[in-house]
């Protein structure tokens, strides 16, 4: 009993911020960044990132926050545009992936034993090929482009969430209220929609938020390798791969700032996902 009160008081009296407050702050920060990146993607016209040789190779200053590149393009504008592309790709890909995960997870837990075995085998298969190699293969199959990028990321990311959901549904199936529903004559479909799916919503949201940073990192990696979007669309990976040629001439800002922006986004989403997970499932806070 004593321990409990001590723990509580450290949360309320100490300088630590409450987890709910933290989550809200994170959500506000993230939405602000996403909104500004998306706005930038629409508002920043092509002229703003057009070549301007009089201003080429400038170091970061107040006029050009991130400096300019070898063609005189403003790196800040380019990064924000790239970020908007990355965010759209990341959100769409992780959304597809999370939906796949829910469907597959529920199918594995409620279907026949053969189906469950097959899905397990499928998960082993997807996890057995290094993701990057699989994405390269898929984007090669789709002829390199947005479609291949989305398909590649979506197909490689659903596995761990699917396993989580499978375990959760298996546990739910043995709950008493499911048995009662069944005795009341409800069909399997009714139970699925009214009892099981609502339970999956928190898992789905957390899984989605935690999947997003991975998706965006893979998007950047794969466009860094030269797959995915065409070079005219300045995704962050492309900006970074272009910067490699100019590293030896000391233009460090070309590589530093766009990457840093990406890392900040990834960290914020990771924190948000962790905090949401702990709010939904306090037991995992012990981990």
């Amino acid at each position, binding site marked *: 009993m004593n321990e409990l009160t001590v723990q509580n008081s450290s949360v309320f009296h100490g300088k630590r911020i409450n987890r709910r407050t933290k989550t809200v702050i994170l959500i506000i920060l993230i939405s602000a960044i996403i909104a500004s990146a998306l706005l930038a993607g629409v508002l920043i016209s092509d002229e703003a990132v057009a070549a301007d040789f009089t201003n080429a190779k400038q170091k970061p200053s107040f006029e050009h926050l991130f400096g300019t590149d070898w063609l005189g393009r403003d790196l800040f504008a380019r990064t924000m545009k790239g970020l908007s592309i990355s965010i759209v790709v990341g959100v769409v890909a992780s959304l597809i992936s999370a939906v796949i995960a829910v469907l597959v997870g529920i199918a594995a837990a409620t279907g026949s034993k053969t189906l469950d075995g097959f899905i397990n*085998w499928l998960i*082993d*298969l997807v*996890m*057995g*090929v*290094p*993701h*990057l*190699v*699989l994405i*390269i*293969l*898929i*984007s*090669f*199959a*789709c*002829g390199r482009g947005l479609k291949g990028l989305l398909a590649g990321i979506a197909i490689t990311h659903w596995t761990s969430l699917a396993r989580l959901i499978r375990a959760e549904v298996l546990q739910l199936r043995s709950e008493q209220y499911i048995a009662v529903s069944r005795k009341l004559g409800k069909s399997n479909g009714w139970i699925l929609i009214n009892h099981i799916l609502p339970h999956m919503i928190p898992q789905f949201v957390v899984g989605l938020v935690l999947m997003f*940073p991975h998706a965006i*990192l893979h998007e*950047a*990696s794969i466009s*860094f*390798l*030269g*797959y995915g979007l065409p070079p005219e669309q300045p995704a962050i*990976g492309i900006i*970074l*791969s272009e*910067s*490699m040629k100019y*590293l*030896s001439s*000391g233009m*460090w800002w070309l*590589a*530093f700032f766009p*990457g840093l922006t*990406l*890392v900040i986004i*990834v*960290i914020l989403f*990771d924190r948000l996902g962790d905090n949401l997970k702990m709010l939904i499932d306090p037991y995992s806070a012990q*981990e």
Partner: protein
Amino acid sequence: MIVKRITNVFFRYALRVITLLFAVSVIGFTLVSLSPVDPVQQYVLSVGSVSPEQRAELEDYWGLNDPPVERFENCLSAILHGDFGTSLLYRRPVIDVIREKFANTFALMLCAWVFSGVIGFILGCVMGANRDRAADKILKRICLLLCSVPTFWLGLLLLLLFSVWLGWFPIGFSSPIGVMNSDVTIWQQIHHLILPALTLSLLSFANVALHTRQKLIDVLESDYVLFAKARGESKRQIMKRHGYRNIIMPALTLQFASFAELFGGSVLAENVFSYPGLGSAVSAAGLNSDVPLLLGITLFSALFVFTGNMIANLLYGAIDPQIKESYANE
């Protein structure tokens, strides 16, 4: 008895690996044939001028006019005979290219694997033993931070810092430019290996460290450690008698199970440092539509990952009696 059980597990796993590899080759083949990129066109581009008749002959020779299933059968029987075709990019048999490139990649991955394992384990122990103190909090932050950093960006930063500014390491290639392969000394090779290996290990040690920390905390909270304390064992004795012994095998298992991430990371690290290994070969193969090489490396990487997973499973079975029993019961 134990030998029998292990061979049993081994064979069951081998069967699984074979079906998975077969599936990988089917999927890989399907994906490649779905691709709108025309391999003949790519070959023609790389060779130069080819007349339409020669082109048609090439298509016939490669069997592109056959139905896909027949092509797949031909392809599979060739693979089973050890013939992976000829790489368009390197103009050599794919198996030779893979062998040569894998030697480079293997050196890189081995360094990174050992280094990240050792560092990760030590840091994990430090964090676990000093739970919730300043050292633990700072190290944990660093580990979480490293989990969110893209491999290639870290590589670029290291390249900037050590190669461009400090000039300690060369910018890329596994050997100096303009020197014959046979003249390259082992020191030069190591010199070129350090930065990519460092990049790769910096990214993977965080995982081991966090895992080891958690395991150690679980151990230190257990009843038998409480009893050891009651018997008057010192902290050092507890770590030595109960700590390390219980956490080293799970950490090793985790390291073996992380071959997929290692391979993925090496693709990026090799591209940043233009290190001539499998990773840069696979991305070049995809970009230049070198279908035989792409398929070959995909199969090879899958085999590599499955091998790691199998070792991890066997280790796991060897250390965890519960799993051992479940094997026996099956």
